[in-house]
């Protein structure tokens, strides 16, 4: 009843809501512009420079794109996350499946993992700098550390929580243990694995940005930090926008990928 009701009202509501959405964005831009161009300049020159107007940011963004500087740093950042993610996928998923499937392995490795897991990836930055310097290897290390545990834990939980009726049904249909693992358990656990991937990516992305801001020679995080030192606040915000857009695209992309690979998952079939 509630669903149908909403459908009944959505005809008249749609245009009103659309208008409000646009109003919301305009409100944001308006407040931003007002602060940057009207309020802050009143508070002194330093304050005036601290928040660039939307227009200044747009200009700077175009500049950076045109000069190629943006591309260089963006590629560097992307390269790092792609490498790290590949490593994480190839290690966390198999290990997660094994640990979910085998109680012995899980009992053995769990305490170790529970000790390492609470240490935030960011906290690894200084040590990794001592070991690996501030280059790509160190960045990849940090991302791996960040993304590994969420994916591992989610995969493990997914495998452990496969509906026992499914396994029972498969075995009464003649499947061997190996077949059950690959043809029943893995598909059944896949929603968790995908959820884990999205979470892992989010955390990895955040860790990468943090690592590049903290200490790097290239990459988007480095770029905005360098711009801060040059008091180029428009550049800083432009960089932030790019980081935001990229992060968003990745999340949407992962969701699309998920839907393409597993359209039968509940989140895509239920309204």
């Amino acid at each position: 009843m509630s669903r149908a009701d909403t459908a009944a009202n959505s005809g008249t509501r749609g245009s009103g809501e659309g208008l409000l959405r646009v109003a919301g964005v305009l409100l944001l831009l308006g407040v931003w512009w007002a602060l940057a161009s009207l309020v802050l300049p009143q508070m002194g020159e330093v304050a005036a420079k601290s928040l660039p107007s939307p227009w200044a940011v747009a200009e700077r963004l175009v500049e950076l794109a045109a000069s190629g500087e943006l591309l260089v740093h963006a590629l560097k950042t992307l390269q790092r996350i792609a490498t790290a993610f590949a490593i994480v996928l190839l290690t966390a998923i198999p290990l997660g499946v094994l640990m979910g499937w085998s109680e012995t392995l899980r009992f053995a490795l769990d305490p170790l993992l529970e000790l390492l897991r609470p240490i935030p990836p960011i906290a690894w930055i200084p040590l990794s700098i001592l070991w690996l310097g501030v280059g790509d290897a160190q960045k990849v290390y940090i991302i791996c550390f960040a993304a590994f545990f969420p994916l591992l834990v989610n995969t493990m939980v997914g495998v452990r929580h496969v509906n026992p009726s499914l396994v029972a049904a498969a075995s009464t249909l003649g499947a061997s243990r190996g077949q059950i693992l690959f043809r029943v358990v893995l598909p059944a656990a896949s929603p968790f694995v995908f959820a884990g991937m999205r979470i892992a990516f989010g955390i990895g992305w955040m860790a990468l940005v943090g690592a590049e801001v903290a200490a790097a020679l290239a990459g988007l995080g480095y770029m905005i930090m360098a711009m801060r030192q040059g008091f180029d606040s428009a550049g800083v915000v432009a960089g932030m926008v790019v980081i935001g857009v990229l992060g968003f695209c990745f999340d949407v992309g992962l969701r699309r990928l998920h839907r393409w690979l597993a359209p039968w998952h509940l989140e895509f079939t239920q309204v």
Partner: protein
Amino acid sequence: MGAAIRLKDIKKSYYSARDASEVRALDGITLEVPDGEFLSIVGPSGCGKSTLLFIVAGLVPPSEGTVFVGEELVTGPGWQRGMAFQDFALFPWLTVAGNVEFGLKMRGIPREERQRTVRKYLEIVGLRAFADKYPHELSGGMKQRTAIARTLANGPAVLLMDEPFASVDAQTRQLLQDELLRIWGAGETKRTVLFVTHSVEEALYLSDRVVVMTARPGRILEDLAVPFERPRGEHLLKDPWFTDLRLEIWSHIKREVLQGNAAEMLPEPE
């Protein structure tokens, strides 16, 4: 004091903006329920019986037509039209007593009187000892008894019940039916009850009158008076007349179900 329910030409349609289609749930229901009568509505799944109940409750507006409960035109939900839900709808953060007290509290009844009323109704449904338990600690039957106590404690003029026993096991169901009859029959005044159910047997066992609905779009197909005397008891289940009536009503429904299966089904409202 109870009240009569009068439905006049109730129609309900749902529009989907996405594909500009109209789904006709109810197609002109006119019904009069005299004060104090126990009326059941049965029909195939998706025939709109729950929708009809929600319209009487005022939770869903009709597309056309009017509902009067007593002298009042129904325009929204209110405590005069108490309702029991299939999933019990108990507030998990309140104890049994807290739940039963809820309506009284919302209406601003003073504390002393509230507590007296709560005690009384807990006694009536036999849950006095569980007053401080939380819903998650109760069995299905106990939950529904709490829900019924909660609604009755509020003293509504009519009682609307949306398949209240569908979520409990068959044995508990039988016991709850007898309890409902006992509570209903023993009240200060017999309240008007509008009872929606899938089970023809249940409808015949409990009610004074049974209305059978068609498949979607819902209309009234049959309207029968139930001839059995009260108090009702399990002996009724052996009565051949009971069985005959049951089969007769079922054959109507079965026909509607089979016809309806050919068309697309609207899911029952939540």
